[in-house]
C-alpha cells in the first residue's frame, strides 16, 4: 500500500519534472524564435517596405537610456566608493592599500558597471516593456496590429530591442566612468593619491579587452532583458491583475538571468 503511494508520487514527480522540462524547452524555443524573427525584421524590413521605424527606436532610446542616467550615476558612484572602501580595508592587512586601484579598475569595468546597469535597466525598462505589451494584449491592441497587417514584432518589439542593445552598453560605459571617478575621489581623500595619478594608473592597468568584456556582457544583458520582457508581456492573461503579475515576473526573471549569465560569461571568457 505504502509502496504504491510512493510509487505514485515518484511517478507524479517524474511526470511533473518532464512537463516542466518540456515547457522550459518550449519557452526557450519561443525566445529563440522571437530573437530570430525580430532580427529578421530589423535586417530585411526595409526591403519589404515594412521598415522598423527610426523614430520609434529613438523614443525607446530616450526612455531606456536618457531616463536611466541619474539612477545609473547614483548606483555606479555608490558602488565605486564602496569598492574603494572595502579594497583599502582589505589591502591594509598586507600594507598594500596603494594597489587598491588595480582591484577597483578591474571590478568596476569587468563586473560591477555592466551588472548594476543591467539590473537597473531590467527594473526600469524590462518591466515597462512587459507592462506595455501586456496591457496592449489585454486591450486587443496587438490583435488590432495583426489585422492591420502590422507585425507587432517589427512595430513594437524591434524598436525596444534595438534601443536596449544600444543603450545598455552606452549606459555601461557611462557607469564605468562614474564608478571609476567616484572610487578615485574616495581614494584621493583617503590615501592622498591625486585624481590624475589615479586615472593614469587605471588606464595603465586596463586593456581594451577588459572594456570589451564588460560591454559585451552588457549587450548580452540587453538581449536578455528585452526578450524576457517581451515573452512575459506576451503571455499575459487575466486583465490588469495579470499585467501586474507578468511585470513583476519579468523583472525577477531578467535579474536572475543577468546574474547567472554574468557568472557563465566570466567563467567562459576568463578561464
Amino acid at each position, binding site marked *: 500500500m505504502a509502496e504504491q503511494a510512493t510509487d505514485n508520487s515518484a511517478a507524479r514527480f517524474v511526470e511533473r519534472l518532464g512537463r516542466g522540462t518540456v515547457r522550459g524547452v518550449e519557452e526557450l524555443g519561443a525566445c529563440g524564435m522571437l530573437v530570430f524573427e525580430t532580427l529578421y525584421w530589423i535586417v530585411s524590413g526595409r526591403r519589404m517596405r515594412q521598415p522598423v521605424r527610426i523614430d520609434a527606436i529613438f523614443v525607446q532610446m530616450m526612455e531606456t537610456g536618457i531616463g536611466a542616467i541619474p539612477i545609473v550615476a547614483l548606483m555606479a558612484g555608490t558602488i565605486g566608493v564602496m569598492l574603494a572602501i572595502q579594497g583599502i580595508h582589505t589591502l591594509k592587512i598586507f600594507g598594500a592599500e596603494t594597489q587598491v586601484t588595480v582591484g577597483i579598475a578591474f571590478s568596476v569595468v569587468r563586473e560591477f558597471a555592466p551588472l548594476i546597469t543591467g539590473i537597473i535597466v531590467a527594473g526600469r525598462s524590462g518591466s515597462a516593456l512587459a507592462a506595455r505589451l501586456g496591457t496592449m494584449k489585454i486591450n486587443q491592441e496587438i490583435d488590432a496590429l495583426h*489585422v492591420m497587417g502590422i507585425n507587432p514584432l517589427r512595430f513594437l518589439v524591434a524598436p525596444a530591442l534595438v534601443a536596449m542593445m544600444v543603450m545598455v552598453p552606452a549606459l555601461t560605459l557611462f557607469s564605468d566612468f562614474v564608478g571609476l571617478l567616484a572610487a578615485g575621489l574616495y581614494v584621493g581623500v583617503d590615501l592622498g593619491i591625486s585624481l590624475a595619478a589615479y586615472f593614469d594608473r587605471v588606464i595603465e592597468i586596463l586593456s581594451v579587452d577588459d572594456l570589451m568584456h564588460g560591454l559585451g556582457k552588457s549587450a548580452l544583458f540587453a538581449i536578455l532583458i528585452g526578450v524576457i520582457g517581451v515573452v512575459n508581456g506576451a503571455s499575459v492573461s487575466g486583465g490588469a491583475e495579470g499585467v501586474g503579475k507578468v511585470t513583476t515576473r519579468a523583472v525577477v526573471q531578467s535579474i536572475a538571468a543577468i546574474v547567472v549569465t554574468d557568472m557563465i560569461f566570466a567563467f567562459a571568457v576568463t578561464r
Partner: protein
Amino acid sequence: MTQAAAPRPPERVIEVEDLVSFYGPRQILRGVSVEVVEGEIMVIMGGSGSGKSTLLRHLMALEWPTSGTVRLLGRDLAALSAREMFELRKKIGVAFQGGALFSSMTVGENIMLPLHEHTELDPTTMRIMARLKLEVVDLAGFEDLMPSELSGGMIKRAAMARAIIMDPKILFCDEPSAGLDPVVASAIDDLILRLRDAVGMSVVVVTHELESAFKIADRITVLDKGETLFIGTVEELRNHPSERIQNLLNRRAEDEAVDADAYMRRLTGVEVSGAARL
C-alpha cells in the same frame, strides 16, 4: 431592411465550412458553417460564451481552425503565404469590442496608422483622409485628443473610423453597441447601415442586443454553445417555430449573465495561462 436584389448573383465574400475550434482542450466551435455575400450585413448572435467572438477571430485570421476552412474573398486562409495574407489584410477592417485604439497615439495618429504603414501618401493627404473618415463617424475635430480623453461611444466610433480608413471590402465589428446608452448605440447602428449603403461594404457584426440586430441585419446567425442554431433573415428568425430559439430571443436579461468559465475561474482561482504569443 433587406437589400435590393443585385442583377448578378452576389459574390460570396466569406465562406466558413465546418469550422471546429479549440482553446486548449476545450472545444469552442463545433462545426460552424456560414456564408456572407457582398454588401450584406450579417449579425452573429448568441448568449455569452457561445463562441461569437471566437468565430469572429477566425474570420480575421487571428485564430486557426482545428478543422474546417475559412475563405475570405475567395481565398482559403490556411493556404495563404505570409505575403498574400498581408495583402488580404489590407482589405478587411476591424472595430474591436473595446476599440483597441493605441493609447500612446492621438485619435488622428491611430486612424492614420494603416495609411502610414501601407501607403506612400504624403502627410497632408493622410490627414485629409483621416479627417474624411472622422466626418463619417461624426468625430471631426477630435484628431488631436488622446483615446483616454474620449467617451465610450466616441472610442467605438474612432475605432470604426480606423477600421474603414483603407476602404476595406469587409468590416468586422465586435459588440459595437455594448455598454453604450441607447441613443449612442442607435447612432452606431445607423453608422453601420450608412457604411454598407454608401460603399457596399460587407459587414459582420457580433452583438447580443436584439433590437440592434433586428435593425441592421440582412441575415442573422444564432450561435449556441459553438453550434449554429439558426441562419436566416430577420423575418425568419422572428417567426421561427423552434422553442429553443424563441427562448433565446426572449431571455435578454440573461445575456448579461455570467460566462460559465469566467465564473469557475473566479471561484477556483485557477487561471488558464495565456500562451506567450504576440
